[in-house]
């Protein structure tokens, strides 16, 4: 959790609106940081926000402290995957990795996004729902989510992580085309069981026109035709299909 150096803080309160999760508040003549809410994202100390440099990072005393910091601060690199941000390449390198083959459908469930933050207990709730519906979670060398569970087929949080608060983390995996409907249904149901939001992405190895038959499942579930997307334009080499 970021720490306020009380000797430096002048109580000017400039830092308060910068915190993405509202963890900083005025406390008599100083500011204070709510340790339970702070995600250690670094906005308050990495940028020249405090004129007195009164906010410092850490301390990171537990795995949960380090995990929340690495996942919430985009300038950090997830050691196991070598990726900054939320620590996964997902579709961005699919033209060279083939991580999402044509016969599988990928999902990226961006927990806590946009801007609300997420406790890992809610991540567990959603992960269990989609795994039960047929989603196979990405392994630890591809997505850091795997490091908070002992068993990806039966995802339960490791001890002491339920109350860890992050800006966001991505539940990522693939399923068979025939299980897409079950995964969407699971998401539609589990969204009412959590105290945060999530943004859903469906990853498809498309034909040259940008189409994949799994898009039809969206219609069947009353989900509007996607307006925005992130397109890997196939310039990576060696091309996985070549």
């Amino acid at each position: 959790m970021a720490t306020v150096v009380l000797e430096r803080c002048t109580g000017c309160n400039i830092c308060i609106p910068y915190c993405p999760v509202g963890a900083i508040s005025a406390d008599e003549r100083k500011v204070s940081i709510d340790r339970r809410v702070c995600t250690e994202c670094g906005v308050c100390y990495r940028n020249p926000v405090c004129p007195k440099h009164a906010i410092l990072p850490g301390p990171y005393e537990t795995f949960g402290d380090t995990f929340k910091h690495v996942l919430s601060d985009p300038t950090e690199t997830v050691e196991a995957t070598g990726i900054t941000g939320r620590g996964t390449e997902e579709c961005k390198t699919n033209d060279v990795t083939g991580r999402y083959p044509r016969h599988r459908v990928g999902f990226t469930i961006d927990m806590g996004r946009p801007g609300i933050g997420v406790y890992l207990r809610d991540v567990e709730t959603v992960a269990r729902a989609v795994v039960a519906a047929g989603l196979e979670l990405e392994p630890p060398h591809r997505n850091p989510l795997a490091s908070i569970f002992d068993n990806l087929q039966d995802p339960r949080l490791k001890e002491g992580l339920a109350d860890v608060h992050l800006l966001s983390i991505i539940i990522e995996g693939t399923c068979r085309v025939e299980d897409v409907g079950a995964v969407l249904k699971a998401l539609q149901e589990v969204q009412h069981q959590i105290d945060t939001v999530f943004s859903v992405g469906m990853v498809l190895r498309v034909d040259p026109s940008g189409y994949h038959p799994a898009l039809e499942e969206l219609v069947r579930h009353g989900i509007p035709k996607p307006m925005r997307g992130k397109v890997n334009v196939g310039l990576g080499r060696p091309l996985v299909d070549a």
Partner: protein
Amino acid sequence: MTHTLHRSGTPESLQDDFPWLMYWSRGINDVDIRRKCLEIIEAAQAVGCENWGDTKAGSVLARPAEEIKRDLTDRSRVRGVFTSKQQVVEFLRILKEKDLGMSVIISGLLEDVLDACRQAGVTPHTINFSLGVWGKKELLPPEDVLEITTMCGHHMISSALVEKLVSDIRRGKTTPRRAALRCARLCPCGVFNHLRAERLFAQMAEKTSPPVKQGT
């Protein structure tokens, strides 16, 4: 990382917003990365890209371009944002010609991105389709605030800051441009579209201004 995927806004609001990313994958196409980053930045600048950067080295709206280029390494992954479809077309044409072997990703309105691919002669390989926000949406700030905050997909820009800046604009303490640049400097990747943000800030300040009484 899906930080450029889920931007809020109407099609009209998003028509000038195209984040781009360059990626490599460990053990596959991870050689000579720094030189390739510099070539990609050169291509982006050639077509008029105004914001770009690297998560570690920072964005060009926060640091001088030469310092960012100096700090790039063979582990860097550069990214930025275009503000017109034509920029995307020209950028892709250049990269196709250069054949650097890096994965390139363009986010935006699918109709426009796919058309840009057709014009540039590149073939879409994989798409992450945005299915929107689910869950306890009553926790979210107003949509016009989200249009700005979601331009940093790592959420380095708080809704409280956006609301404060709108208030500052209304009181004449800052301008839409300065507010947009303030936000852009918090986004280390360089994908924040400050030109769109400037327009949105101006609209928000106008919309939320208390009505001026006649005769005062």
